[in-house]
């Protein structure tokens, strides 16, 4: 789950919990006791009214009672005051008959004591039995709007409005807060990704704005770091380029000078000059390979990717290598091939395969063939097997190190620069592929695996 959503949810949960706690605490320790106090007080009042009515009717008769009830109505304008007979006829009140109340009247007379019913939805009804001196039984009934517990949020449209307003405010504020906290982080993350993808000019400071907190500090630190990385890589690139230029120039001059010397040479000096030429050639090749390797290793060289027909590429390289091998009484055989496409730089893949293949040709025994096989399973796999006696087991992982030479191969007659396999490894790695070597029978087997792309799917 992303940070923004988490923050938002946490804020929302917190706000809801705080609201709930306050609501219940208020209800339990404030509203409820107040309501029950009011109810108790109302019951007492009903008791007083009932006793007074009974006394008055006994001592002053029906006229006295009527006067009392009128006075009561004046005192309590919010309550409707009625005196209803057993038969439902109204002795005092606005209506003449209350048949709907017969049931309640019956129950009150049966109970014989005043009571207040708060359970009804809209109103509270207080009832008390009143007995006239002639034995007729009546019920004093007070009806009024129920003293609802003052609910802030439930039960009325105002309450719901209040609730909705609170909820909305909460959600909006939480949203803003979450956004405020998470958006700079997201920006910094995006910048990190662009930086990792190689855009070294990425900066984040502008986007984070005028904040003054840890996140702003982080953004500033990021910018400092990015700037430093950019400087380092730029200077490294510059260095690589400068070295290449600086080393190449004297070599180029050396070559031309050598050729002029040759123009003027005699038979005796000719072989020595040829030797110098060979060495200078080797030096040139090593410099170029070293540069290729350093570019690949730093990953600074971005290369264009295209869809490559691997079968054709392998075929091509194998044919070239075969041509070269024939001159030494060796050969290169394409044992099997399969249709497969990979995405990448043709130049890099070509040099990788070429380097491994040339290495095989160099070490395979005279009269034998280096076998090349291309297969396409879950990955594209190129297998290159030579017959050169293999490599001591404990040195096999070191084969891909620059300038690593196995045992007697250290004498330079083999002609390699010691960089071919290292370049191959880096080139394959740049394509997210794998390269590994192992001993088989009488030689070395190098396997290159690359992600194949399924053209049918697209």
């Amino acid at each position, binding site marked *: 789950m992303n940070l923004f959503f988490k923050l938002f949810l946490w804020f929302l949960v917190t706000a809801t919990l705080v609201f709930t706690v306050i609501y219940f605490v208020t209800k339990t320790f404030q509203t409820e006791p107040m309501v029950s106090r009011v109810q108790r007080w109302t019951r007492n009042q009903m008791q007083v009214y009932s006793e007074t009515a009974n006394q008055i009717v006994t001592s002053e008769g029906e006229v006295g009672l009527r006067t009392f009830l009128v006075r009561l109505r004046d005192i309590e304008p919010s309550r409707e005051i009625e005196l209803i007979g057993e038969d439902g006829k109204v002795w005092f009140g606005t209506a003449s008959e209350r048949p709907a109340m017969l049931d309640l009247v019956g129950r009150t007379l049966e109970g014989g004591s005043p009571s207040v019913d708060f359970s009804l939805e809209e109103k509270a009804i207080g009832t008390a039995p009143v007995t006239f001196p002639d034995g007729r039984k009546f019920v004093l009934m007070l009806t009024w709007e129920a003293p609802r517990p003052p609910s802030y949020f439930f039960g009325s449209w105002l309450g719901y409005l209040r609730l909705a307003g609170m909820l909305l405010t909460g959600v909006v504020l939480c949203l803003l807060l979450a956004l405020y906290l998470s958006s700079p982080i997201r920006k910094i993350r995006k910048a990190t990704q662009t930086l990792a993808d190689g855009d070294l000019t990425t900066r984040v400071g502008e986007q984070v704005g005028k904040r003054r907190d840890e996140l702003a500090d982080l953004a500033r630190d990021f910018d400092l770091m990015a700037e430093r990385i950019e400087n380092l890589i730029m200077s490294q690139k510059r260095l690589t380029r400068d070295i290449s230029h600086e080393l190449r*120039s004297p070599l180029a001059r050396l070559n*031309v000078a050598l050729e*002029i010397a040759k123009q003027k040479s005699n038979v005796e000096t000719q072989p020595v000059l040829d030797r110098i030429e060979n060495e200078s050639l080797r030096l*040139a090749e090593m410099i*170029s390979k070293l540069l290729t390797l350093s570019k690949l290793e730093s990953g600074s060289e971005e290369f264009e990717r295209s869809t490559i027909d691997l079968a054709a590429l392998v075929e*091509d390289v194998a044919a070239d*290598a075969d041509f070269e091998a024939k001159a030494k009484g060796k050969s290169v055989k394409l044992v099997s091939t399969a249709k497969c496409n990979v995405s990448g730089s043709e*130049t890099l893949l070509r040099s990788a395969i070429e380097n491994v293949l040339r290495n095989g040709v160099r070490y395979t025994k005279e009269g034998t063939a280096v076998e090349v096989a291309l297969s396409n399973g879950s990955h594209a796999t190129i297998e290159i097997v030579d017959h050169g006696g293999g490599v001591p087991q404990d040195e096999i992982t070191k084969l891909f190190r620059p300038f690593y030479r196995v045992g007697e191969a250290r004498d330079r007659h083999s002609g390699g620069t010691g960089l071919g396999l290292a370049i191959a490894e880096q080139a394959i790695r740049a394509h997210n592929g794998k390269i590994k070597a192992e001993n088989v029978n009488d030689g070395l087997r190098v396997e290159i695996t690359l992600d194949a792309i399924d053209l049918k799917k697209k």
Partner: protein
Amino acid sequence: MSRILIIDDDEELCELVSEYLSAEGFETECVHSGDKGLEKARSNGFDLAILDVMLPGMDGFEVLRSLRETSNLPVLMLTARGDDTERIVGLETGADDYLPKPFNPRELLARLRAILRRAEGTGDALPENLVVDDVKLAAASRSVTVDERGVTLTSLEFDLLAALLKNAGKTVRKEALSETVLERKLSPYDRSLDMHISNLRKKLGLRNDGSERIKTIRSVGYIYTLA
């Protein structure tokens, strides 16, 4: 006597190359910066330019690009050895050949001679004009039109196209192309023929029906297909 313009910021190298080439019978002039080189190259006083890629200010590619707007002066580029992208960019921009630096002077000489021979007139070896479908090749003016539209080719591309058109519908082997057009034996790992062919394809464009004019026969050669 052929006049060669050398554009390279390495003054000592220029001196040495001049000495070497004059011993081989060339007349040379050295320039050490891109913009001066461009100026000289446009002056029409030269038969060929040797152009280094790495130059202060205006680099070799820019010089070549600007030069190609007005001139078909044969250009041999000196590229950084092992840097394939440079090589490819050079050939795409319209260099007649390239040589990775540091180079073997004998090879430089051989390529110079090959380019000059071609520029001076392999033309008379051609039948007057070649017409294949909508492509017209005029030998005398060394000009090419495709569907009445003029196409500017370097002299190497012209010869390459001529060799393919002469054998239109038949496969021309890479070895043969290398020997007749580049005037050198095909060596393994040499990609320059492929690059020149790919430039040629781009310049000629597709046929009206969208098909490719020049087909590659893997590890054999190329074929100019008949519509």
